[in-house]
């Protein structure tokens, strides 16, 4: 009996020591993760090619560093906000980062060409103060032809002694600079595009706060709740977006009546997000689900459901169908066009509200994204993932009532 007890003790110690060794090996590992993404909208609208390269690893027993570089190239055409019947003018100096070379027609096209390049870098340093406390420090820079963004963030993470609950508190500050490509300025809100009235570059400061709780429910289930707030002050207007003035009776666009949009100088956002991961028994397939409620003081409320289900095959392959449902209400100041009663006989701008935007993203919207993901373990500690998804957006009032896009992504990560 004593012999059996000794053997069991030795076997247990061996198992525990092996597990400990593996855990240490993982903690000390470096990881690279690279991705190529292609996003393409129907009808020759926006196309995006995105490369992401990330590398992370431990630089000491308590410190981990992650560096990420992103390169985006964007091109195609995007709705300007003008209605389709507004005549065959040129573009409104491009939609973001390029395209048109200047305003030459007082009526903007409903679609404007653009091209842009974005380079973004971020550095995250995680310091573990002890077994239960850690702090993430993040700095990020994003540069485009017509946009610069600088941000810093600190997230404090506290685990309970049993390590079944994690509390997180994050604070971020972001400074954005917005301007039109080439000129480096922004149009005067509510000014007629033919008048060429411009101001200096726009600046915006944003503070984000997030409080999160992650809790282990049982061996196969973990849940997370996040409460997030955001306050931004400064320039929120899109310097390329316009709106048209339309006769209410004839529904005809008034000649020479494209105006630059105007948005409020501040925005407050709040959201509550629930997430749940559950591994089913005995299939070992995994269900991922999330729901987010969002609300802001522009009048936008939204609901987002995101569900995917992972079918595991032999522990090295998986297929994961995914569906995401999104619905939002329109912003208070959204209008697809500004109607006048007198056919433009008088200056319509005297009756403009303080804020008006025809940006389709502020319209009432329903969006469904569905697709499939495939993943496979490759070689030693390598992980290949591919996904193909289709996004269909439906708008209630916008000039273009739908936006359809495919998303293709391939990513490969490897531990060293």
């Amino acid at each position, binding site marked *: 009996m004593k012999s059996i007890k000794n053997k069991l003790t030795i076997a247990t110690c061996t198992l525990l020591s092996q597990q400990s060794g593996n855990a240490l090996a993982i903690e000390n590992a470096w990881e690279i993760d690279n991705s190529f993404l292609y996003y393409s909208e129907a009808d020759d609208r926006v196309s995006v090619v995105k490369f992401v390269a990330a590398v992370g690893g431990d630089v000491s027993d308590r410190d981990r560093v992650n560096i990420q570089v992103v390169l985006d190239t964007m091109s195609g055409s995007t709705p300007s906000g003008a209605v389709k019947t507004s005549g065959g003018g040129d573009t409104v100096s491009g939609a973001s980062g390029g395209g048109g070379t200047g305003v030459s027609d007082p009526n903007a096209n409903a679609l404007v060409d653009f091209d842009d390049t974005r380079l973004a870098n971020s550095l995250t340093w995680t310091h573990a103060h002890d077994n239960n406390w850690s702090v993430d420090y993040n700095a990020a820079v994003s540069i485009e032809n017509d946009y610069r963004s600088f941000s810093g963030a600190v997230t404090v993470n506290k685990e309970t002694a049993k390590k079944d609950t994690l509390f997180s508190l994050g604070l971020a500050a972001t400074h954005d600079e917005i301007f039109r490509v080439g000129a480096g300025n922004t149009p005067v809100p509510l000014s007629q595009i033919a008048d060429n009235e411009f101001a200096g570059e726009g600046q915006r400061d944003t503070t984000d706060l997030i409080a999160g*709780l992650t809790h282990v429910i049982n061996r196969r289930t973990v849940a997370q709740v996040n409460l997030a707030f955001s306050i931004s002050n400064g320039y929120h207007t899109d310097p390329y977006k316009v709106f048209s003035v339309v006769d209410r009776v004839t529904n005809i666009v008034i000649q020479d009546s494209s105006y630059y949009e105007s948005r409020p100088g501040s925005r407050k956002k709040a959201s509550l997000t629930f997430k749940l991961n559950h591994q089913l028994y005995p299939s070992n397939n995994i269900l991922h689900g999330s729901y987010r409620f969002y609300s802001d003081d522009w009048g936008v409320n939204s609901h987002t459901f995101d569900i995917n289900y992972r079918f595991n095959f032999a522990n090295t392959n998986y297929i994961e169908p995914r569906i995401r449902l999104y619905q939002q209400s329109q912003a208070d100041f959204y209008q697809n066009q500004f109607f006048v009663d007198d056919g433009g006989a008088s200056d319509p701008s005297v009756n403009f509200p303080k804020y008006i935007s025809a940006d389709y993203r502020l319209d009432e919207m329903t969006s469904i994204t569905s697709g499939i993901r495939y993943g496979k373990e490759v070689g030693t500690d390598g992980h290949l993932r591919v996904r193909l998804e289709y996004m269909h957006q439906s708008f209630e009032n916008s000039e273009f009532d739908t936006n359809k896009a495919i998303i293709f992504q391939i990513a490969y990560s490897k531990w060293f």
Partner: protein
Amino acid sequence: MYKISIILICLLTSACSTLNNISVSEDVKPWQKDILAQQSMQFPQDKMYSFTDDHIFFSKEASTGGSGVGGGGCGCN
């Protein structure tokens, strides 16, 4: 907006309480965390997908946030 913030905080508090008390909840010992330690059981399950999704939906919808802070913005269309 203020009212919504208060409601969301109340919802968060009740959600935290619910998470702790739901009937399927059980004490998980350290040696029982093999499943929970898998990458597919983390938040997010795939950082790369999460990062690129955030960018896509940030560009095409009016709502943002809820997963984390930091990372910088863009003037996307």
